[in-house]
């Protein structure tokens, strides 16, 4: 759990991949939701690294890219429910950025599941727990983020298709 993508021994079972997730939390809803989860003593995975911002609209696409570049296996942005943004539409702007970012990241080998935007209201400790647990589980299934994946447009041929050439 200390460093990025790694595997830990979970009890006596086989090594489980433990993804690392950076979660950008809106100060007014998701942060409070996360605290509510804590006050309710819900059990949460230790995979999430929360970053508190004033608004999900503050999340610059470069913050997300930076997180992936530094070894995050997933990035989660949590904002207020639609219509409840403290700054009116910051959460909507976050949604727009995520939609485009996912398309940008696809050809770079970042699967859609690795970047998620969810709404968590201030009292919704339980929902916070569900969202982060759900993402951890889906990333466990997906495995670590590969540095570069072949583009979908590459139709890889068997490497031995051409063994010798004119010398």
């Amino acid at each position, binding site marked *: 759990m200390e460093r990025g993508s790694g595997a830990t021994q979970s009890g006596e079972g086989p090594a489980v991949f433990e993804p690392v997730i950076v979660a950008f939390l809106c100060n007014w809803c998701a942060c409070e939701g996360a605290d509510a989860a*804590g006050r309710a003593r819900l059990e*949460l995975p230790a995979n999430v690294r*929360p970053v508190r911002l004033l608004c999900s*609209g*503050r999340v610059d696409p470069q913050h997300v890219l930076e997180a992936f570049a530094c070894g995050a296996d997933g990035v989660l942005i949590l904002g207020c429910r639609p219509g409840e943004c403290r700054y009116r*539409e910051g959460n909507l702007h976050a949604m727009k950025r995520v939609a485009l970012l996912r398309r940008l990241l696809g050809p770079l080998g970042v699967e859609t599941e690795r970047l998620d935007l969810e709404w968590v209201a201030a009292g919704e400790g339980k929902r916070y727990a569900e969202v982060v647990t759900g993402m951890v589980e889906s990333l466990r299934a997906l495995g670590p983020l590969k540095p570069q994946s072949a583009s979908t447009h590459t139709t890889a041929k068997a490497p031995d298709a051409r063994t010798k050439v004119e010398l």
Partner: protein
Amino acid sequence: MCRIGVYICECGPNIGRTLRLPALVQSTGNLTGVVRVRRVPVLCGREGLDFLGEEIVAQGLDRVVVAGCSPREHESTFRSVLERAGLNPYMLQVANIREQCEWVVRDRDQATGLARRLVAGAVARVRHHEPLLPSEIAVSTDVVVIGAGTAGVRAALTLAGKKRVVHLVERLPCVGGKVPLYEDVFPGMACAACVMDPMLDELLHHDGIRVHLMSSVEELLGFKGNFTVRLLQSPRYVDPEACLGCGACVEACPVRVPDEWNPGLAERRAVAVPYPGVLPSLAVVDPRHCLRWQGEDCRACEEACPFDAVRFEEEARVQEIQAGAVIVATGFDLSDPGRFPQYGYGRLADVITSFELERMLNSSGPTGGRVLRKDGTVPGHAGFVLCVGSRDPRAAPHCSEVCCRYTLKFLHRILAQGAVDRATVFHAGLHLPGGASQDLYRALEGNPSVHFVRMGAPNSAGILEQNGSLAVRFPDEEGRVRSHLVDMAILAPAMEGASGNRELARILHLETGGTGFFDQGITLLDRVEAGREGVFVAGCAAGPTDILGAATGGQAAAGRVLSELVPGETLRLEPVTAGVDETLCSGCAVCEGLCPYGAIERKDDPPRIMVNRVLCRGCGTCAAACPSGAVHCAHFSDGQIAAEVEAMLGREDQGERSKEKGSRIAG
């Protein structure tokens, strides 16, 4: 080089059961910039706070990280400690190892690992913190009052009495609101004109009060103390300096249209002096009906005016006013009883509203004070139907407060002048607060010409035509349908927020309730709170009230302004706002379209943008969208966020990298 002290709060028994604090202390000590790591039993207690303050001084710290409970609990407490110890309060970062770690992660190793990352993130972030100072801004103590009815006028006069400059904005061509249209007012049956005229006269001649007639607020920018109010003034087409209100133009005008001041009772011309005794006494041209706007070259009024006061060339005028506060006093409108077809209003000739009766009773009104049916005869028997729309959850849930009392006023007036022989009041329980109202009621109690009939429920009557008379039908308290014949029915429609309130709410960023009143900010102890700093609501704009209530509300709102905006005092602005590095801004204006507060403005020549720190609330949406990295967000800068993310992912050593400019060169 930073000197960071990290204080790990054990929160009594709360932190350390799962977390291995010794390990956390040890790993934290190795972080770049950390010169001191201490465990404290309870940091937020008196002893803990004193200890923290002493440590800052003794250790010569320039930055502090507190690892403990959620920053929402004590961040501001610790900031105060920093401030008292001589540090800028923003040189603090709180790592939430309680709610987001100790309390939710069960495995001790995992919890300790996560706490290490959280603290590493906080340390890396605090290295990039910069001291921030709240700025003080000068405030305007001028006030914009919207609505020149009773409440607005009282507010304006109160403020002007304390030497405040008041801009009184009125969408009509005259001041005074509805009261000057009445003959007399309850509860003392005082003459309305006698009450109002001296006050309006003072208003119109007060040096400190600028009256903006035929004007509306188009935009409200800014913040308490620094509003910019954009006014749109429609043209009167009459020069107020030249016009005396003589009415020569009115005589000459060939157009006749229904008169809004006397609905259903009279016609007016396309140029008119609104009503007799109106203040200011000036003519106004109605371009919706004037022939000139129908494509005809009529100059009848212009030619008739002995003072050459007609100005067809006038245009709408936009004006920006700087003000520190806004008082909304837009009053009320009576709802349209036509919404309830069972009353027959608009269909049955002698079903009228209480306002129409007010106009008939007015001695300078269209009937010269006489109560007449549509056929010109005098009604023998008048029926007053109360609670038309009011107190009905499906219509207006509220009690409109004044209907019962003005009905008593009508009874006194019509009986006194013998306008009718008999009157019946259909009510669902009379609402007569205060001693004076009770006196009025008692004076009518023994009168044989007056009958009070109780309906089973508010807004439950219906009116039918029956042999040339009107049959008022309603279920009584036992549920039996009863019917009374009357010659004329006067309806008391529910009061609702003035017709322009919803649009005004949008402009002012306020909210209105279901019936259009600005009643969403009102609390038990505060009837002038509008829901936005620096904006207050007074009179019927906040909900139904009587004339005294409106006047009191105006004075109350004025009092709040007087106490909150004092000449010479400044307003403190939070420092967490966006700012622009002009050396990077290309003026592409992407940010401008995103700001929900209109805090970003594009300047030309050279193209660039500016952030108005008074309006900015620091959400950072602009910074996230800026393609030039020119918009910076104080306390949530890219460098701070990147450092925190990197450190949380185990790359604290690269934290400094994000500080560099143009890292692709000379790296």
